[in-house]
């Protein structure tokens, strides 16, 4: 954070800049993670941990709540009691704060909420930026203050805090999510003295004087009746009337001190403009750049930037708008379906209307009211470019410009969109524009962030860094957009004309046109395993053509070889950064190299001298290996860039998802999108990502066919089948098979097959393999080998393998891992992290129950890898059945699933009544069979399916209303499995109230908690599942309290099935738990230990760590089955043995614990002791519980009589 004597310039993103101001001006900071605002909380927590002080010399208290609703409540309480308080949020989080926002504003209490604005989930979730969140709270009474750049975000943060204290109106300060929150820029920082000078201590004391205190007791929060509520509501008006002037005064004081001047409405452009765009947020930068160019051509255009949207200052607006304005385009970055127009448009229409109605001021002499049109742009961070701004200005020239338009998309459904010329560019030739293609974690982004720092700090240049990430968590492509120039950079859009392009992964060329944005004469740097004299023949035709036609200067370096040789492993940050400086000419070479070294020292110094020296060595080796390529005159490559998906793919996958995969989703028209957000399943199989450098290879001679590799594979890329040997006749020559080790299948064949193009190379399977060669112990039954030489053959083998029929499910034991490997997974090739600890459980769920499962999925990792476009992993079997999946929200998933269950049950009930009443039509025997069907086994379910098919056949031509109704609901006669899936953030924190309620409902739902012990999806923030002693974000000092025992809480109900499982600890117990949970006719809860990348170790060892967690007693395996009470036995079954491994041996294999032991050994030691005590204490409780005698309850009574009312409502035939 900024020091009290601030440097002239700093390089940071808006989240850090805003957090720095907010931290220094507050005492209580309530936080909760949500993208893209989480880093603000993370900074605050870290500074608090480091005991940084606010401007009054106090270390603010930073507290994480269980939800944004909780954060808002805590904020409300803190400010009511006289503290200065703040919070940070976004999107859904802001919606959860709304009730408290009304209260805070209604009570005229100063506070600021900083919002990295993000789309609100509607037809789909989006983590990207638009103003739909801020616009949703317009009526709360908060002042709404917008900032448009990193510099402004910092400045407005201070202005908001100063203005709230002076006006007593709480402020919501918002800036564009990602575009501003995550853009790195060079800005002038605000010192502590700047902050002090802007905050009036008298106002602070007045705030404290209004606080609730028993020393001056008052009562706040009365209930008012019709007689006075209205009047009391209007009593606040004077504060709102006064607020805009106060904000302007604060802005003026700010300008006086810093030289940066802001207005409530800032006008840019021709003083006599005829056409004006009105908008807020980062798009202002693109419009400003456009105005510079268009104005130079003699056009009279301007931009009115709205800063204070609420309270809307009519006079300030009219005064800022040139009186010459003839046409106004108001652009909203939000959508209000069904409204006459979007909010800002409506405000401007009203403002202009009132100006003319009143005919006051400078507008009195204007005879003709300017035309106002409204439009939408940039939803969910859709690009807004100068080309679009130009199109808007051009539209305003028209006699009848399009109103309620959209820009940036092709709307061929409602025809709202206007065209623009994508070739129009205002890129400044004096600005260096560089694009870098990298792979997540390969160091590309880190290197670029360093580059920005170096250039920003070592030169007078202004800098901008913006990073585009993939929708996948494994093997993801990152694209870095860097600009460096002599003037502040306003370009709030991606680079479309680059003078430097670097591709850090050679295999990207196979499928991506990385040179699309390269401008003529640009420099192209390629990380290539081929040297300068041989690389050319390995380039696709399109790439060769562009290099030639654009006369690119082409360089290669074998970054991975340099990394290997210098001990850098697979990280190339230093190497590729060195190349950039060596050939881009941004800095003199020697100066640049010295700066890189200084930066290495700074970045890695605390990680030790060895790391520093290794990086130094890499710099030197890079310079020796960087080669210029002589470019031939002709492109003669025999191959070209591959299509994104196979031509065999279904048309929707080919024409829509394929376009998205190729990176051209922006070009898809509105008509290509399913309305209402419904998508087909089974699409991930078409996205062959080829991200594994090595894949597992089966040794059929060693394999004992235990199925462990299949079970643990997080991506369903290892599968097994048993089949008739005659099927081998048409198999490819390299297709492997073995004699099955099942006695009953001995005459058949067994094959274990890997999908080479879908594997992520995580190595979890190899680590799980229990077999070692007797003559070479390192050789297992499955071993990693380089993918490229295997790809072609193994792809053919995989295709052939898929063509082999699936095993008859009825022949297999569904409680044996060995048999379960033969069940078809209906969850495959997700974008989860390589080696993910969650997905094996989900895959198992789909293997066991997938063809009749409905899944309610809480927001989080599992909703992202489960439902993030372009392709999704849930799929169907040959019969077309598979999981139906939906994500509602983060906070309400249990309730969402409950609703689904109730709906399914209600339809079953209705279908059963129709079967009864239509028995004449469908046959008495069939009706009876249907109504009394036992669906407790696979065979029973299959038989019921047959019966339902028979009903369909018999009613195919019915004209009876009841018959047609039965056809609509008859599938509900087949047993459905309802699963409520989510992570610990949902189950332990934000969704716990709902989860608890659903557990208490007695309704037959299955709840799977994928417990990674942190908010994994948002980057590892602490949850109540985080163990004591682990470092997490929001727990930088190590979590000081113990993990919540969710299992015991659920067990306390007595009639909830509860299991705690860890696949790596005991896979059979896991299987049993899934079967028991599903078969239990009431609420079931499975808490599944899920190793996670946020634990800080190589996930290849995830299952081993799971085992260590169990053996150390940290994760005792248990099952609590209320049905067992019926047998007079103790339902509490402890499935693991007393601890045999010291806790420290388990935990210190993970960086989340060991980093604390390094950073703060004494605290780590204290927490370890307490954690050991936690383990011992809990083990004692569990042992006692497991040793308790059985219950007499239920001995004489049938189980259903013991179940709560909700559960009894379902059919009592053993169905779920």
């Amino acid at each position, binding site marked *: 954070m900024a020091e009290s004597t601030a440097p002239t310039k700093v390089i940071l993103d808006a989240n850090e800049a805003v957090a720095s101001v907010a931290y220094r001006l507050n005492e209580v900071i309530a936080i909760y993670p949500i*993208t*893209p605002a989480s880093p603000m909380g*993370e900074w605050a*927590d*870290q500074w608090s*941990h*480091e005991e940084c002080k606010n401007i009054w010399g106090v270390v603010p208290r930073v507290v994480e709540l269980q939800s944004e609703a909780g954060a808002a409540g805590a904020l409300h309480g803190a400010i009511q009691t006289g503290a200065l308080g703040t919070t940070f949020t976004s999107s859904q989080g802001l919606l959860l704060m709304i009730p408290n926002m009304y209260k805070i504003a209604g009570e005229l209490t100063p506070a600021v909420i900083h919002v990295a604005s993000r789309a609100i989930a509607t037809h789909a979730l989006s*983590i990207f930026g638009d103003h739909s969140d801020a616009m949703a709270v317009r009526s709360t009474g908060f002042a709404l203050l917008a900032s448009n750049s990193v510099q402004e975000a910092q400045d407005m943060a201070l202005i908001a805090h100063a203005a709230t204290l002076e006006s007593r109106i709480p402020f919501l300060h918002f800036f564009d999510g*990602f575009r501003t929150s*995550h853009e790195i820029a060079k800005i002038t920082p605000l010192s502590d003295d700047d902050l002090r000078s802007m905050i009036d201590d008298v106002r602070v004391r007045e705030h404290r004087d209004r606080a609730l205190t028993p020393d001056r007791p008052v009562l706040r929060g009365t209930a008012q009746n019709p007689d006075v509520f209205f009047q009391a509501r209007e009593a606040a008006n004077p504060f709102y009337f006064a607020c805009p002037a106060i904000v302007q005064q604060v802005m003026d004081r700010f300008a006086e001190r810093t030289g940066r001047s802001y207005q409530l409405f800032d006008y840019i452009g021709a003083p006599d403009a005829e056409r004006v765009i009105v908008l807020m947020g980062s798009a202002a930068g693109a419009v400003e750049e456009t105005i510079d160019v268009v104005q130079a051509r003699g056009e009279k255009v301007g931009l009115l930037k709205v800063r204070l949207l609420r309270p809307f200052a009519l006079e300030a607006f009219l005064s800022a708008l040139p009186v010459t304005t003839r046409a106004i385009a108001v652009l909203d970055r939000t959508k209000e379906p069904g409204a006459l127009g979007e909010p800002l448009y409506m405000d401007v229409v009203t403002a202009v209307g009132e100006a003319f109605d009143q005919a006051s001021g400078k507008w009195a002499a204007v005879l003709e009211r300017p035309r106002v049109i409204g439009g939408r742009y940039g939803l969910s961070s859709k690009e807004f470019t100068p080309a679009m701004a130009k199109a808007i200005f051009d539209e305003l020239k028209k006699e009848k410009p399009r109103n309620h338009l959209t820009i940036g998309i092709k709307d061929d459904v409602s025809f709202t969109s206007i065209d623009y010329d994508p070739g129009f560019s205002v890129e400044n030739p004096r600005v260096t524009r560089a694009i870098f293609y990298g792979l*997540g*974690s390969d160091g*590309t*982004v*880190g290197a670029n962030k360093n580059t920005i720092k170096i250039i920003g700090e070592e030169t007078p240049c202004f800098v901008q860094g913006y*990073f585009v*990430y*993939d929708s*996948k*968590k*494994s093997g*993801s492509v*990152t694209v870095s957009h860097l600009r460096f120039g002599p003037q502040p950079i306003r370009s709030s859009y991606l680079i479309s004309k680059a003078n430097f392009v670097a591709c850090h992964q050679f295999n990207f060329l196979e499928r991506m046109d990385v040179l699309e944005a390269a401008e003529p004469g640009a420099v192209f740097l390629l990380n290539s395993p081929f040297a300068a004299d041989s690389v050319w023949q390995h380039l696709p035709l399109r790439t060769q053509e562009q290099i030639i036609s654009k006369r690119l200067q082409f360089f290669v370096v074998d970054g991975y070889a340099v990394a290997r040789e210098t*001990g850098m*492993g697979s*990280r190339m940050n230093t190497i590729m950064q060195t190349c950039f400086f060596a050939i881009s000419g941004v800095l003199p070479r020697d100066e640049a190299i010295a700066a890189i070294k200084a930066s290495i020292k700074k970045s*890695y110094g*605390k*990680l*030790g*001298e*060895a*790391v520093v020296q290794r990086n130094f060595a890499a710099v030197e080796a890079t310079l020796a290996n960087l080669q210029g390529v002589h470019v031939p005159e002709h492109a003669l490559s025999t191959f070209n860039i591959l299509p994104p998906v196979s031509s065999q793919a279904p048309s929707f996958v080919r024409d829509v998802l394929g376009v998205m995969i190729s990176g051209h989703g922006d070009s898809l028209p509105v008509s290509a999108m399913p309305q209402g957000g419904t998508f087909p399943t089974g699409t991930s199989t078409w996205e062959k990502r080829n991200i594994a450098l090595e894949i597992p290879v089966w040794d059929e001679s060693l394999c004992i066919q235990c199925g462990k590799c299949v079970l643990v594979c997080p991506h369903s890329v290892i599968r097994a089948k048993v089949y008739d040997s005659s099927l081998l006749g048409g198999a490819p020559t390299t297709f492997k098979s073995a004699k099955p080790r099942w006695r009953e299948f001995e005459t058949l064949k067994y094959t274990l097959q890997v999908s080479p193009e879908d594997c992520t190379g995580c190595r979890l399977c190899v680590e799980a393999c229990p077999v*070692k060669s007797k003559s070479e*112990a390192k050789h297992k039954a499955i071993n990693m080998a380089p993918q490229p030489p295997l790809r072609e053959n193994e792809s053919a083998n995989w295709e052939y393998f898929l063509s082999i029929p699936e095993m008859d499910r009825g022949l297999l034991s569904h409680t044996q891992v060995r048999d379960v490997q033969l069940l078809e997974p209906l969850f495959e090739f997700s974008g989860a992290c390589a080696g993910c600890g969650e997905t094996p459980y989900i895959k198992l769920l789909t293997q066991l129950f997938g063809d009749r499962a409905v899944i309610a999925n809480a927001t989080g990792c599992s909703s*992202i890898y489960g439902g993030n476009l372009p392709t999704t992993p849930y799929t169907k079997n040959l019969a077309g059945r598979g999981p139906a999946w939906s994500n509602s929200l983060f906070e309400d998933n249990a309730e969402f699933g409950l609703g689904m269950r109730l709906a399914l049950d209600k339809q079953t009930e209705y279908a059963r009544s129709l079967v009864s009443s239509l028995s004449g039509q469908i046959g008495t025997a069939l009706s009876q069979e249907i109504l009394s069907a036992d669906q407790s086994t696979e065979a029973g379910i299959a038989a019921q399916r047959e019966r339902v098919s028979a009903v369909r056949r018999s009613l195919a031509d019915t004209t009876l209303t009841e018959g047609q109704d039965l056809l609509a609901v008859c599938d509900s006669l087949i047993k459905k499995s309802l699963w409520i899936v989510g992570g610990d953030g949902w189950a332990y924190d934000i969704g716990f109230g709902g989860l608890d309620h659903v557990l208490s409902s007695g309704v037959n739902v299955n709840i799977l908690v994928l417990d990674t012990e942190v908010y*994994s*999806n*948002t*980057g*590892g923030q602490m949850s109540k599942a985080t163990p004591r002693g682990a*470092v*997490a*974000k929001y*727990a*930088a000092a190590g979590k000081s309290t113990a993990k919540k025992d969710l299992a015991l809480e659920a067990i306390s109900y007595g009639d909830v099935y509860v299991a705690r499982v860890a696949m790596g600890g005991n896979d059979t117990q896991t299987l049993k738990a899934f079967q028991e949970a599903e078969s239990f006719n009431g609420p079931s809860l499975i808490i599944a230990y899920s190793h996670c*990348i*946020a634990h*800080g*170790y*190589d996930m290849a060892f995830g299952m081993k760590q799971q085992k260590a967690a169990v053996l150390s007693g940290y994760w005792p395996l248990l099952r609590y089955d209320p049905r067992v009470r019926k047998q007079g036995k103790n339902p509490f079954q402890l499935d693991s043995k007393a601890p045999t491994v010291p806790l420290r041996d388990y935990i210190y294999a993970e*960086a*989340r614990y*060991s*980093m*604390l032991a*390094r*950073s*703060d*050994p004494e605290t780590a030691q204290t927490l370890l002791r307490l954690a050991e005590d936690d383990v011992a204490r809990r083990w004692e409780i569990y042992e006692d519980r497991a040793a308790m005698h059985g219950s007499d309850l239920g001995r004489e009574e049938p189980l259903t009589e013991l179940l709560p009312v909700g559960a009894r409502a379902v059919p009592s035939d053993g169905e779920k």
Partner: protein
Amino acid sequence: MNLTTTYMGFTLKNPIVASSSPLCDSVSNIRALEDSGVSAVVLPSIFEEQLQLEEEYLDQDLVRGTESFGESLSYFPLLRDYNLGPAGHLELIRKAKSAVSIPVIASLNGTSRSGWIQYARNAQQAGCDAIELNLYSLVTDPMRTSSQVENDYCELVRVLKSSLRIPLAVKLSHFATAPANLAGQLDVAGATALVLFNRFYQPDFDIEQLEVTPRLTLSHSQELLLRLHWVAIIYGRVQSDLAITGGVHTVEDVIKSMMAGAKVAMMTSALLQKGVHHASSVLAELGHWMEEHEYESIRQMRGSMSYRSAPNPAAFERVNYMRTLSSYVLARKEAPV
């Protein structure tokens, strides 16, 4: 009675030194060792590879999966310091020096020349009284000869000695073709003391899991014999002081070490097994024994059973080996059937 001895220029109150072990990894333990009479301590080794590996692993663990996905650009908070590198060891040296009055010897175990020199200087700067180099390199390259390895050792000692102002001990492995010659070379290279011999982890096999598992067992008095043998042979032939480590458990072991020619007897396993107070018991017993046997000083007995002073020096040579074998054969033959 005079129990004092000299070692690397220090006058020690008695010949029992605590050798490098986890016992010496905290100031409280070091203080307890001093209280129990130990005359000097050797701190746990700074392992160059371990420090480097720790740095590398932490670096990898903290960045794994970062900058890949827009919602989770990192997974851990940045902490101010990770205490990596030799900082923890150096801090221990500093604290130990201020906590005790006995000499504190730092121990280094390295692989690269730059690592040795850097850590040795760091340790000297942190205030240790002397440095003990643990020359344990596993030469797995079959192309490297023993003379190449020995030359490297000597060169390292020369370079280190010239860059340090404090005394330098060299701890040897018994894996040398000609230990006496190597001792001589190291003596010439500048070693202030030679410590015979180090003990180390040995790979063991888990035949159920087919895995190689490192293993370290505590020493027993039987292991002393090897040390006695070589100290007795080397004694008087080098300028360097000699120290025995490995197998020193009892008062007899201490006495034998002195008689072989060592100036100090280093103890670890016995202290780990019996506790720190064991040193005081052995010292008391040493006093009694010397009194009973009318020894005036340690100095008096030093080297009295060495190769050059023993009544039957042939016992140290090959002929003794043959005799032992034949007596074993005879014993077998004479044993009752």
